[in-house]
């Protein structure tokens, strides 16, 4: 029976293929049809050259070759170059003189090892010069090394930790071991408890290290290499772009049903895809993680691989006796294993979800969750899971920097064994599930939401149908397509809700009586500094000290029966008041001293008392990723939609299809961006309005001591307008970048990869503390730290926006949809 069905199905598929073949020109189908099943099993004999050339590639190599698309190659090349560039930027401050620097470090350490008196004299001399500079007694002169980007200060900053670790490593480790022994042998620590087991593991791991000799030798390159976090981020991005489409070629070519019935179309194909993905994953990981070594070899040079890894400052407490070389091998192995799992997950999600976008969405959520997890604090129930966050694990060295363990309900489990176990489970699942899911039949229809028959609304009678006298304008259509689709409106509302939730927490006023009293004072003193206000403060100060003095006298009088309880109670309540206001009043006094400081008061106008807490939170607000992600999603499909649906070719021939549509699209995008910006800024203003006094906007900016560094003589309101204009400009630049890239890339996967590379990565890196990326990041405009310091970003992003708009005009006018 089963055979009959199979035959019947095969016949049906044959008929289908036969009918489809005239319309499908598919390279992949040809490949599968021609792939020889006998090739995969190992052939011991090497065929003759002609035969080998004539034979089709084995399935594995076919799958491997599919990664060699133009998109993948370009993207990987860009990311790879970015990886090298980041390593060069991070470590290249004195690359031309790295040899001299190494010589100077080695010479000073040679002195330390062989002539301690000379070294001490050099150190003392350096300290004297430093002190002289510090106390303004003279200029600092480099005597040991003076090359661009590196001087005596940097030399001693490099050498002193080396000598200190060489001297104290054994002592530090003994301290750890002794402390662990002391705690574990404390009768109060239950045997078998988490803390007992943890201490036992520390003794087990660190005791063998306490006699390790750390040589006082130059360390070059390794600290910088292991501190690089960018390769992991770029690698994750590359993985997302490369592996999310492993299954989509077949699905988009509509040959899945053919594959399902072909001889090697299911399990062997899945195996080949997984094997090829695994191989590519390993190669990519090795390329991205090891390539910075080549750059750092030039910019800094490397100290020997045979040095104990504990000699490196970040790994003093590495619990394993490893050389730097072994540590490097382990770190890279961890990254290879982790990214193998990550890439298999991407492949599997692509297989399951049939589209890149949900894959990106899910992984973005996972990565965000990982980032969020990495910030969990000790009081959080999820603190124990902090070690599992992808951000730390992807760095590779996280597992070996120090001993780490998990506390599972009071039981200790080493982090490494736990991760190995989880890795095996994940690997088993990610290798097994693709086979379990298999190739799902292609239904030859697109997904659409359908109401159940019973719920369908009755069709309108024909007489009710009214023809519309006027159709929407091109701009109106574009506006409705770009911004007012129900899904986009829903998304915008959802993002606004999230923004409101986040802002509400961010602008939440400080709690406690200190802040309550302080804001009360500020409300009372609000406005310019006047003699009356100065008198008020002085009066309050006098009152406070009087209350304390009165209390001491009243206490004696009350105790001695010279004062009634009622009167003493009143004095006690005054003293309570003095207690309560004393510290906030000191803060008010500091503010008064600042506002009346001649250096400020004579130079700037409108100096006033004000409570700047809320407005400073607005000015110091971190980059709004909700806004960033929302605009990216809304605008990414702006031009791609037409290419994706094939409508571009029709537009190309239509009267209003080129310049008018192009202009309308941009108009819709900019207007939509401005509307969304207003909504988001509105949420911020609402929070500021709710928690702050709005009259402070007319006060001078320099009324706020934290703004003194700006040196701007303007009002808070003017600064706020400038600040918001920069943010608006940043939003428009973001719009231009996303929509412009949409016009260039033509494919959503490429679009998201490009947006990630151009917008998200620099923003993420600057958020994570890589200061060098601040100036090129859109964060400089969307969350400016200082309105006068954003000029470079304004010009840079402005030029880029204009360029992208112009290039989009050119591509829109030229390009058509390519039918494949």
């Amino acid at each position, binding site marked *: 029976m089963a055979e009959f069905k199979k035959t019947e199905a095969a016949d049906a598929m044959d008929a289908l293929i036969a009918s489809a073949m005239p319309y499908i020109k598919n390279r992949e189908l040809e490949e599968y049809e021609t792939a020889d099943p006998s090739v995969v099993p190992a052939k011991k004999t090497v065929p003759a050259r002609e035969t080998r050339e004539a034979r089709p590639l084995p399935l594995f190599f076919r799958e491997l070759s599919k990664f060699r698309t133009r998109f993948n190659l370009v993207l990987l090349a860009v990311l790879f170059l970015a990886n090298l560039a980041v390593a060069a930027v991070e470590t290249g401050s004195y690359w031309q003189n790295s040899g001299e620097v190494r010589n100077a470090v080695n010479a000073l350490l040679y002195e330390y090892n062989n002539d301690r008196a000379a070294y001490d004299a050099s150190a003392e001399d350096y300290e004297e010069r430093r002190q002289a500079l510090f106390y303004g007694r003279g200029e600092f002169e480099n005597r040991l090394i003076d090359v661009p980007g590196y001087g005596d200060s940097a030399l001693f900053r490099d050498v002193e930790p080396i000598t200190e670790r060489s001297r104290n490593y054994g002592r530090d480790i003994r301290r750890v071991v002794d402390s662990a022994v002391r705690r574990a042998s404390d009768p109060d620590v239950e045997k078998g408890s988490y803390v007992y087991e943890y201490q036992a593991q520390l003794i087990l791991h660190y005791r063998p290290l306490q006699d390790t000799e750390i040589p006082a030798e130059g360390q070059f390159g390794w600290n910088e290499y292991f501190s690089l976090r960018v390769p992991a981020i770029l690698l994750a991005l590359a993985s997302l772009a490369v592996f999310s489409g492993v299954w989509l070629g077949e699905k988009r070519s509509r040959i899945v049903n053919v594959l399902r019935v072909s001889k090697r179309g299911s399990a062997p194909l899945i195996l080949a895809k997984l094997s090829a993905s695994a191989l590519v994953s390993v190669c990519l990981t090795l390329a991205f993680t090891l390539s910075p070594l080549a750059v750092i070899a030039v910019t800094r040079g490397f100290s020997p691989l045979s040095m104990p890894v504990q000699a490196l400052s970040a790994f003093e407490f590495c619990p394993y006796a490893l050389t730097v070389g072994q540590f490097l091998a382990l770190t890279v192995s961890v990254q290879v294993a982790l990214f193998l799992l990550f890439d298999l997950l991407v492949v599997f999600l692509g297989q399951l979800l049939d589209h890149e976008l949900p894959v990106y969405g899910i992984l973005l959520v996972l990565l965000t969750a990982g980032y969020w997890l990495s910030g969990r604090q000790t009081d959080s129930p999820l603190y124990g899971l902090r070690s599992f966050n992808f951000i730390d694990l992807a760095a590779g060295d996280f597992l070996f920097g120090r001993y780490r363990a998990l506390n599972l309900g009071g039981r200790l489990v080493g982090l490494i064994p736990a991760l190995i*176990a989880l890795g095996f489970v994940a690997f088993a699942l990610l290798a097994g599930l693709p086979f379990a899911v298999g190739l799902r039949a292609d239904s030859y229809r697109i997904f659409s939401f359908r109401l159940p028959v019973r719920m369908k609304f009755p069709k309108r009678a024909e007489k009710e149908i009214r023809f519309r006298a006027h159709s929407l304008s091109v701009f109106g259509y574009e506006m409705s397509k770009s911004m007012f689709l129900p899904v986009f409106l829903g998304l915008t509302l959802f993002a606004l809700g999230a923004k409101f939730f986040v802002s509400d927490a961010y602008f939440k006023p400080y709690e406690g009586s200190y802040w309550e009293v302080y804001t009360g004072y500020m409300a009372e003193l609000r406005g310019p500094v006047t003699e009356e206000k100065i008198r008020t403060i002085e009066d309050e100060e006098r009152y406070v000290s009087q209350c304390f003095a009165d209390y001491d006298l009243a206490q004696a009088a009350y105790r001695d029966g010279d004062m009634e309880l009622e009167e003493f109670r009143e004095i006690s309540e005054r003293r309570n008041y003095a207690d309560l206001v004393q510290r906030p009043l000191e803060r008010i006094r500091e503010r008064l001293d600042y506002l009346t400081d001649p250096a400020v008061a004579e130079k700037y106008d409108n100096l006033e008392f004000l409570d700047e807490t809320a407005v400073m939170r607005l000015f110091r607000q971190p980059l709004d990723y909700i806004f960033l992600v929302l605009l990216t999603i809304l605008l990414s499909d702006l031009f791609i939609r037409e290419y994706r649906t094939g409508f571009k070719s029709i537009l190309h021939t239509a009267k209003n299809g080129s310049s008018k549509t192009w202009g309308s699209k941009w108009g819709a995008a900019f207007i939509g961006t401005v509307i969304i910006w207003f909504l988001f800024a509105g949420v911020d203003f609402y929070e500021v309005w709710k928690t702050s006094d709005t009259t402070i906007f007319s006060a001078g900016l320099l009324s706020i001591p934290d703004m003194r560094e700006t040196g701007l003589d303007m009002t808070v309101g003017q600064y706020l307008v400038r600040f918001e204009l920069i943010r608006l400009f940043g939003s428009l630049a973001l719009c231009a970048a996303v929509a412009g890239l949409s016009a260039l890339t033509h494919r959503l996967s490429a679009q998201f990869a490009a947006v990630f590379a151009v917008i998200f990565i620099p923003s993420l890196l600057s958020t994570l503390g890589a200061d060098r990326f601040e100036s090129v990041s859109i964060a400089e405009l969307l969350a400016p730290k200082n309105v006068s310091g954003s000029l470079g970003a304004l010009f840079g992003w402005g030029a880029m926006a204009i360029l992208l708009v112009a290039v989009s005009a050119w591509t829109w006018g030229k390009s058509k949809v390519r039918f494949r």
Partner: protein
Amino acid sequence: MMKRTICLCLCALLAVLPVCGCGYRGDARAEIENELESARAENEAKAEAKTENEPKPEAGMPEQPGALVESDTEEWEGAVPTPPEKVDLDPPKTDWDHILSSEYNIYDNKLYYNLQAYKTIPSPSGVGNNTSGIVMHAYTDLATLESAYLCPDPLCAHDDLNVCFYIDKGSSSPFVIADNRTVYMSRMDYRGDGGRVWKADLTNNTVRAVYTPMDHDLPGLDGPDNGVLYIYDSLKYTDEESRTTKRIEYMIGLSVDTDKMLFKRELPEDCRIHLIRNGKIWYSTTRELIRCDPDFGNPETLYVFKGTGGISAWYYDEYRDEFWFLVIKQGYQSGKVMRILSDGTVEEVIPSSKKLIYFQLTNSKIYYSVYDPIKLGEHPFDPNGTVDVSGGKIYAAEREDPLGEARLVYDTRGEMFLCLPGVNTYAVFDDQLFFRPIQLVDDYDFITKKTYKVLSIAHDLTMYRIDLTTGEEEEFRFE
């Protein structure tokens, strides 16, 4: 299908292997366990030996009044409990056994204290670093004389509020010990603006908030006694017109077992609780020292204050049910030590003519310092100038004969500063003197525009120990 299932099972089996490997105990591990076992036995023996060497309570000591046994906490819901029945207390085994103090915190032979430092620590918001005063919780085991941070992780750098929970920003962070494994801490939350009471489990190195105060200020802590942690919270009502603030104080009882609130009651007006022990509350008003039942019934006025000043340091001898306290007046020139016996009799132990500025009670001795000022320089507000009031001297007398011959047990000879009444104190346990150093620092006064020398607690996470018999000095410098 069967093949797939078998494959998945094999993979799962493979995955479990490393977990099983966690339980593997090799020779090295066995050796460590043996070592820890013997170290543990040694520690216990040391504690035992110390106990045996300590002076035993003398014959003829008053019969101990007893302590409370565990009460059925359910009965306490909504009201302060009535005193439960009493049980016998073992006689003190060490010189500090059964002595509770306002000045230090000892639980089971461990001396707990706060250390202070200025440190540059990552900001709680994650953006940048802040340099601020921090407090570190630490302890010294009085049996082994070993000191450590309360944080049970020897690898912790104790420099990140997000990672180490046993540091706090600010200058004070009260904490009480429940049972050497559980600590209750009153400290700010990560934003540094809202006080909470946190429960730390030192055995599992976990923490969680158990109480949020009504006005978000740091609450006071006491106990735990009979499984109840006492939290002192307050509400403040300020009248802007009259510039007065009425404080309503509350006592909240929290079950140590369930962390549930057992009761919350308003405290009497002008009440400062010193101690809750043996079914009695000891508290002061401006005029009186009072002992009463846990529901504030049956108040007994034990001492009436005269003139200025008040109780500066107190000790409660739980075994003998005696309350010792130092009454000190402004100017530090008339400090006297009083004792209240279990029957409420009040005795003057050391008269004001002795001018005590600080004292410490143990089971066998009294250690004290007297007003013996050394002028160190001018002070912007104090006409007497900056003064080391103790003169750096510590005397010891027999507890049973405090007015007998007093022995000078330590003299700093002006090399360091010992005692700053009301700010920092010393404690002597078994001839080991413990104190946090005080240093002479420059202080710039904005009003007079001058720099003065003032005494301040050294901000360097240091605790000194000096053996008073051998003169051996040890500096516990935490890093």
